[in-house]
């Protein structure tokens, strides 16, 4: 079975909605048309939007994301300020993830454990 990931999610959305327009499908899902359109182009939305799309596709969001189980102390709390829409390209999402983890390791982890 092919593993479902963020890129295939966009393709599954396109396949499921078929002739249904982006606007109508987005309304059914409960998100904006712009957000659905970006997800179908492979952009990464916030988790709540993500879960709504997964529900619509009858998918387990945890399985799609492949969330890594981590110790509570190693999960940084983070707020991100986006310039425009709250979606990211996969490459930027990955680079931001790496930056958050690196900064957390360097500046905050010692204090968490101490």
């Amino acid at each position, binding site marked *: 079975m092919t593993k479902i990931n963020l890129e295939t999610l966009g393709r599954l959305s396109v396949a499921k909605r078929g002739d249904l327009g982006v606007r109508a499908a987005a309304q059914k899902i409960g998100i904006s048309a712009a957000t659905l359109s970006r997800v179908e182009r492979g952009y990464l939305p916030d988790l*709540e939007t993500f879960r709504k799309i997964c529900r619509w596709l009858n998918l387990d969001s945890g399985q799609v*994301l492949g*969330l890594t189980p981590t110790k509570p102390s190693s999960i940084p709390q*983070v707020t991100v*300020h986006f310039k425009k829409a709250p979606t990211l390209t996969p490459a930027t999402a990955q680079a931001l993830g790496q930056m958050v*983890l690196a900064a*957390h390791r360097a*500046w905050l982890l010692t204090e968490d454990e101490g």
Partner: protein
Amino acid sequence: MFERGFKTWCETIAAQRRRAAGLDPRDPLDPLKVAAALGVEVHSIDEVPGLDDASRQVLVQDSGSWSAVTITNGTKSIVILNSAHSNARSASDLMHELAHIVIGHEPGRVDITEDGSLILNTYERSQEDEANWLAGCLLLPREALLWIVRRGIELDSAARLYGASVAMVEFRLNVTGVKRQVKYPRGRR
């Protein structure tokens, strides 16, 4: 859009922060000093130890999609700014992040996927709007705007003086109605 009284509260906070820093109500307020007063460390992407070059390059190249990140472990917060942005833009971005802390917004939990991507739990539009408004007030409070208009200071000079962008000065002048207040003061017909 905002809860009743929020805008007045923001002006009060802007005045309080200046008083605490020994400044007059219309003086420019350096975001780095506000960060220091709040105990928040500020860094650029280049200063993150252990960040691989490929990630650093992506974050600089796709600079349009993110401005700043605040990371907290509950007791300590650090802000990482996008160093590809102008000083004025960075000042606004930093004030925005600090505004989240001053208002007391609960930081959104982040998850890291198997491939190491960052995914936010939720994106709170209302919190972003509140932080934007307070950041604008902290950089350019009403007292400063009144002074700018009464003195006839040009937009770009005002922007330089207050470490903000010209767009931010224009935005604040428009949304606060300060221009109108100076042109048509109360009691005059």
